[in-house]
C-alpha cells in the first residue's frame, strides 16, 4: 500500500510540474519528429525567453486531440509534414488565420493558405531516381510517362497508403483530370517491378540491388542515405541518380512541411512569433538542411549535397489542391489496384 501511495504522489508531482509553469510559453503539437524540430525550438526559447512545450505524434491524431479538447485545448501551433493535413485541420475548424507581414513576405504564395491559416516551412520534392547503368536520363521525362509500356516491370514505388503518393496522385488529378489519372495509375501499377513494400529508402535499395530500374521517392530520403554515417547506405545512394520530372512543363511535384496557429490558441501572439522565427534566415537553413529538404525561401542557400542534384523547377499548383483532392486520389488508387 505504501509503495502505491509513493507511486501516486510521484505521478501527482509529474502532473503538477507539467501544469505549473506560469511564464511566457507557447505550446506546439508537431507531426514533425522531435529530433527534427527540438533544437530549433530550444534556440527560439534562448532568443525570446518564451518556453516551448512540445508534443509530437501523427498529424491526424493530433488534430483529433485538438478537436476533442475544444476551447480548453492548450495547442498554440500545429506543425505537419504535408499540406493535405494542414488543409484538413483547417477544414475541421482547428486553424485560425494569422496576419503577419513577415510571413506574407517570406513564404511564397503557392506554399501557404491564401487566407493565412497555414504557412509552408520547408519544401520536399518527389522525384524519379534511376540506375545510370541501366537507364539513360533521356529516356525519362514526366510523371505521366511512368505509365508508358516501356517501363513494364521496371518501377519501384511504395504503397498508396503513403501520403506522398496520395499527394502526387492528387496533383495529377488537378492537372490532368480524374479519368486520365486513373488510366495513369493503372498503367503505373502494371509497370511495378514488385508489390509495393517498405518505405522510400527501401525503393532506393531495391533500385541499387537491381530489382527495378527506376523508383519514385522523396529526395530527402536519398539525402539522408548519402549524408548519413551508415557506410552501406552511402554506397547504395552513390549508385543511383536523381531525375527532376516535368521540367519542360509545370515542374516537379512538391509538398511542404508547414505550420498554423490553433483556433483556440491560448498564446496566439507567441505562436505567430514562433512561426515567424521558423522562416528567418538561420532557422530556414537548419530546418531544411537537417532533413535534407529545401527552404521555402528562395534566397536561403541550400546545402552542398542538394546543390549536387541541381536546381529544379517546382510545380506551382496551390498546395491547398492536394488537400482538396486527397480523398479522390485514395479512391482512385483503390480502384486502380495500387496496394
Amino acid at each position: 500500500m505504501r509503495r502505491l501511495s509513493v507511486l501516486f504522489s510521484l505521478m501527482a508531482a509529474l502532473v503538477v510540474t507539467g501544469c505549473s509553469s506560469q511564464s511566457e510559453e507557447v505550446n506546439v503539437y508537431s507531426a514533425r519528429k522531435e529530433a527534427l524540430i527540438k533544437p530549433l525550438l530550444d534556440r527560439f526559447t534562448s532568443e525570446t525567453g518564451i518556453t516551448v512545450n512540445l508534443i509530437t505524434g501523427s498529424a491526424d491524431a493530433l488534430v483529433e486531440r485538438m478537436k476533442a479538447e475544444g476551447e480548453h485545448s492548450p495547442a498554440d501551433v500545429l506543425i505537419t509534414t504535408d499540406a493535405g493535413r494542414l488543409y484538413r485541420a483547417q477544414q475541421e475548424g482547428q486553424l485560425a488565420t494569422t496576419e503577419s507581414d513577415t510571413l506574407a513576405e517570406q513564404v511564397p504564395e503557392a506554399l501557404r493558405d491564401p487566407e493565412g491559416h497555414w504557412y509552408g516551412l520547408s519544401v520536399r520534392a518527389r522525384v524519379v531516381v534511376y540506375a545510370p547503368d541501366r537507364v539513360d536520363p533521356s529516356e525519362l521525362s514526366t510523371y505521366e510517362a511512368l505509365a508508358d509500356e516501356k517501363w513494364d516491370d521496371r518501377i519501384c514505388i511504395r504503397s498508396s497508403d503513403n501520403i506522398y503518393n496520395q499527394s502526387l496522385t492528387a496533383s495529377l488529378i488537378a492537372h490532368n483530370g480524374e479519368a486520365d489519372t486513373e488510366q495513369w495509375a493503372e498503367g503505373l501499377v502494371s509497370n511495378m517491378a514488385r508489390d509495393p513494400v517498405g518505405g522510400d529508402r527501401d525503393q532506393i535499395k531495391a533500385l541499387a540491388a537491381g530489382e527495378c530500374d527506376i523508383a519514385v521517392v522523396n529526395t530527402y530520403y536519398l539525402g539522408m542515405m548519402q549524408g548519413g554515417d551508415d557506410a552501406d547506405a552511402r554506397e547504395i545512394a552513390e549508385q543511383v541518380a536523381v531525375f527532376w520530372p516535368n521540367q519542360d512543363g509545370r515542374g516537379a511535384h512538391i509538398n511542404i512541411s508547414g505550420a498554423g496557429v490553433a483556433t483556440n490558441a491560448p498564446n496566439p501572439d507567441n505562436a505567430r512569433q514562433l512561426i515567424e522565427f521558423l522562416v528567418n534566415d538561420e532557422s530556414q537553413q537548419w530546418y531544411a538542411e537537417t532533413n535534407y529538404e529545401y527552404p521555402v525561401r528562395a534566397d536561403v542557400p541550400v546545402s552542398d549535397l542538394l546543390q549536387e542534384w541541381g536546381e529544379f523547377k517546382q510545380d506551382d499548383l496551390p498546395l491547398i489542391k492536394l488537400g482538396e483532392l486527397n480523398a479522390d486520389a485514395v479512391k482512385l488508387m483503390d480502384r486502380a489496384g495500387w496496394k
Partner: protein
Amino acid sequence: MFSSPALRSLVLLLLALALATPVLVVAGSWLAGASPNWGHLSSTVLPSYLRHSLFLALFTGTGTLLIGVAAAWAVSRFRFPGRRVLEWALLLPLACPAYLIAYTWTGMLASEGALQQALPLPLPDIRSPAGAGLMLTLVLYPYVYLMTRAAFVSQSAVALEVARTLGAGPWRRFFRVALPLARPAIIAGLALVLMETLADYGTVAYFGVPTLSTGIYRTWFGLGDAMAAAQLAGVLLLAMVVLLTLERRARKERRISVASARAAAPLPLGRGPGLLLAAALWLPVLLGFILPALQLLVWSLPRWRDLAEPGFLGLLGTSLLIALCTALAATGLGLLLIWARRLRGDRPRRLAAGLAGFGYAVPGTVLAVGVVLVLASLDRGLNDLLASVGLPEPGLLFSGTLFAVVFACTVRFLTIPIQGLDAGLQNLSPNLDNAARSLGTASLPMLRRVHLPLLRVPLATSALLVFVDTLKELPAALVLRPFNTNTLAVRAFELASDERLADAALPALTILLAGVAPVILLTRSIRNPHQESPHADH
C-alpha cells in the same frame, strides 16, 4: 449502501462501462448508419483486407500454438541440458515490439546486409504476407507459452499419474489429459495473440500487406472518413466478440477444476534427445530475440554516446513509471472484475468482465482517439461545472496529464489480466470456496487467504505481460502524452518509422533490455515447486 450484492453488481457494471467507453465510442459509430464510402470500400479493397487479416490470424494462431504449447510442455515436463535458462529465455521475444523486429529482419536480410553477404544463395524477401505472419509469430508465441506453462506447472501430478497407471503412453497423456486441462490457459494466450495480430499496424504497413488495420488508417487518414474507419474497427471488434463467445460456450460444456495439490516432477531425457530438444527450443529465441538484439547492438555501437545525453535516463524513467502504473492498474481491475464474477455470476457481472476486455482488439491510434474523446469531454464537463459555480477552471485534468496515457494503456491491456486470471480461477475448484465459506470465512478474507495465494502465478504473469506490453507498445498512447513527456518507445518509434534504423537502435535496444529484467525476475516466481527444492535437481 453497497451491502446488497445486486447493487454491487451494478457498480461493477458501471466501472466496466467506464473502462469500455473508448471502445464503445468506436463501436457506436454504426448507430449513425453506414458511411457513404462503404460501397467504394466493399467493391475495391475490403475483400483483400479481410483475406489478408484472416490469413495472418490463421498463420500466427497456428504458429504460436505450435511453438508456445510445445515449448511449455517441454520445459515443464522434461529435464534436459539448459532447461532452466530456456525457461525464461523463451520469453525474451516478448520484449521486442513487432514493428521493430520487422525492420530489423528486413535490415538483416537486405542484399547489402551481413547475412546475405555471407550466404551464397539469395535470401527470400521477408516482406510478404507470410513474412508478416512469421514476424508476428516470433514475438507473440510467448503469450501462449507463458499462459500454458503456468497451467502445466499448476496441473496436479495425480491426473497424469492416474493416466499412466491406466496404461496411457506419453503422447496420449499429453493429448488426452494435460492438453484438455490446460485448455482455458491456451485459449487465453491464443486470444491475446489473435487480438494483437488483427490490431497490428506497424509490421503489416511496412511489409505492404493490406489488412483491416491498415485499411482503418487508410480510410481515416487518406479518405478523411473517420466514420468508415471506426466502422471498419467495429468489424474487427465484432470478429473478436464472436471468437470469444464461441470459446466461452465451448468451455462451459466441459469445465474441469483441478486444485494444484502436487505438481508432476519433470522426467529426465537421454543425452541425445535432450540436446536435440534444447536446440529446437533455442531456435525461436534466436530468431525472435538474440539475432535482432545483436543487429540492434551493431547499429547502436557508433552512437553509444547518446546514452550520456541528459534526456536519455528521463526517457527510461518515464517509460518505467507508465508501465508500472499500468501494470498495477490493469492487474488490480482485472482481478476485481474476474473475482467478483466468481463470487456471484449474475448477468451484470458477467457482462462487466466481458465488456472490459476489448481494448486490445482495436488498433492503437483508434483507441487513443477514443480515449481523447472520452477524457476531453469529461474535462470540458468538469471545467464548465466549476465555472458555473464561480470556481477557477482546472484545465485538462484528465486528458492533458499522464493519467490519459495510463488510462489508455489500462483499457488496451486490461484483457491480459482478465484472460489470465479467468483461466487461473477456473482451475480452482468451487469446493475451495465452499469449504472456506463453511468455515465462516467472508469474501474478502477468502480472497486474501485462499484465492490470492493460489493465483500468485497468473497474477504475476498478467502484471509482467502488461508491464512489458506497455513498455514497448507506447505508440498506442503517443498522441495522449502531456507536453514535453517522452519515452523510449516514442523515441524508437519516431526514428524507426522515419526509416532511421541506426538512430532508433539505441532506444530500441534499451526497451528490449528493460523488458528482459522483469521477464527473468518473474519467471522465478512461476517455478514449479519441485524445481526449487534442491533434491529435485539431482
